[in-house]
């Protein structure tokens, strides 16, 4: 599938935002789903790269927020607006929203914020939703999307490892502190970020009996369940991040 690149912005440092015109993905995408992008036209790099869908706009565009981490994303960052992007999506299973729960806590580590903005938009369609964001990163330059969450009236908690913005420390520590004030209140937890962080968020949520969904990342070959390359160890054998996930109930994963 081809999608025209309407804009491609360097937000700060290694962070980029890609806006694509795709009525099909706009119509079908759910928060937490992803798309496979062809980052070059030659055989090197060979494979497509998976990216979560960051946002949908009423003008039938979708946005992808990404960080340059290697050759593929480096090459992607050089593609200019006006060109067509070769894209397959939406793919995988997204977040499941429990309509009975009003309080939603989103926990992101660094670029893990990408799928959570789409989720926050979806959650905010229910006017009773109360959204709380925990966003952690190494430095303040790695803290993204704050304005977008402010518009959604989310309560925002920030931490950085070097203390350059918000509380110094890990976001899981801030999250843990917040759980002490729950007073038996039911919240749903949604998280995306490094595996160490997800494991900790899962542990903390499980200890309080809170439902927790995590969005996992993996090297992928095909993105459609054919190559079995993106296996992750689940409680009942290997799960495939592309078709069984990328969003899993945290309890399904063998941490």
């Amino acid at each position, binding site marked *: 599938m081809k999608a025209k690149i309407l804009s491609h912005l360097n937000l700060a440092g290694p962070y980029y935002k890609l806006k694509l015109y795709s009525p099909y993905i706009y119509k079908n995408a759910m928060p937490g789903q992803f798309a496979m992008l*062809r980052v070059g036209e030659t*055989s*090197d*790099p*060979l*494979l*497509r790269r998976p990216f979560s869908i960051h946002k949908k706009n009423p003008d039938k565009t979708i946005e992808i927020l990404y960080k340059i981490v290697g050759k*593929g994303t480096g090459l992607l960052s050089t593609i200019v607006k006006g060109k067509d992007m070769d894209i*397959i999506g939406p793919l995988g299973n997204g977040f499941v929203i429990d309509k009975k729960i009003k309080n939603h806590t989103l926990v992101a580590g660094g670029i893990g914020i990408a799928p959570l903005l789409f989720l926050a938009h979806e959650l905010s369609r229910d006017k009773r939703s109360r959204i709380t964001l925990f966003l952690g990163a190494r430095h303040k330059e790695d803290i993204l999307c704050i304005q977008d969450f402010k518009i959604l009236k989310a309560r925002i908690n920030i931490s950085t490892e070097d203390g350059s913005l918000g509380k110094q420390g890990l976001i899981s520590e801030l999250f843990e502190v917040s759980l002490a004030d729950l007073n038996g209140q039911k919240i749903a937890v949604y998280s995306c970020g490094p595996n160490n962080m997800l494991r900790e968020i899962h542990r903390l949520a499980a200890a309080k009996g809170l439902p927790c969904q995590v969005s996992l990342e*993996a*090297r*992928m*070959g*095909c993105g*459609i*369940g*054919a*190559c*079995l*390359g*993106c*296996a*992750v*160890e689940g409680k009942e*054998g*290997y799960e495939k991040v592309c078709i069984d996930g990328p969003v899993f109930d945290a309890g399904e994963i063998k941490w």
Partner: protein
Amino acid sequence: MVAKAEGKRLKAKGKKEKQSPNLSVEIAGMVLKNPVMTASGTFGYGIEYAPYIDLNRLGAIVLKGLSARPRKGNPPPRICETPSGMLNAIGLENIGAEAFIKEKLPLLTKYDTKIILNIFGDSIPEYVEVAEVFDRVDGITGLEINISCPNVQKGGMVFGADPVIASEVLTAVRNATSLPLIAKLSPNVTDITTFAKIAEDSGCNAVSLINTLLGMAVDVRTKRPMLANITGGLSGPAIKPVALRMVWQAAKAVKIPVIGIGGIMTAEDAIEFLLVGARAVQIGTANFVNPTATVDIIEGIEEYLTKNNLSDINQIIGRVVI
């Protein structure tokens, strides 16, 4: 008005006379509508690709390797990208023969294409067991025997790199089934023709080659191998010249048909294999990059024949000019 209608009719007739070229090939008694098959392990159980292509268009679907019992596969990471290629060490994860027959096969037999099952085992009796199970089932056109997977401890390449054991496995499977048999050969041997001849002598009806080349990659930051299995099988455009050379050698060495596999991304790649003597080709890693690769290649081959005024695919098979 009459003249105009007449002209139209003549034109239509003229069009009909210029028929599209024949793409049909015969392999091991199986008549394929075209020479393009999928390569085992790159096309799942087939149905995964139904949203992207019309499976009826394919010459044959070769499915992910199946064993008598389900298999968990290797721990992750299982894949990594390399220049113009990829390494994989999936470890032959599969749902097992019985579950395949019950859950997947009924979804495939409704398509007008040939269904070829890739089979393997950890021992000769296990190869025989899975062949016997499939011999009793309708809807299966043929079997491809995997004696070349580099990512498992037993079976696989261990069998395919030892002439004596290779002969024993293939002969045992031959005696266990009347289905057409294709031996899938490993490139990780000194002389591919030795193994092609063993397959022929063991009663196999065709050989397919090459499976992946044994490879390795290391992350210099962590100093660890990129794959949990340490080594993996290299596939993709990077291996095409090696594959082409081996197909050429094998096609000269045996009378049974040779199926060419290895880094085919485009129709031009496929035609190269046909020219050096492959009677059909399998498309593997290309499916990951482009889910419509198989159909694009079929259309490209047809275009090539038309452009060169050739009426039959068999007019290019083995016609490399040396």
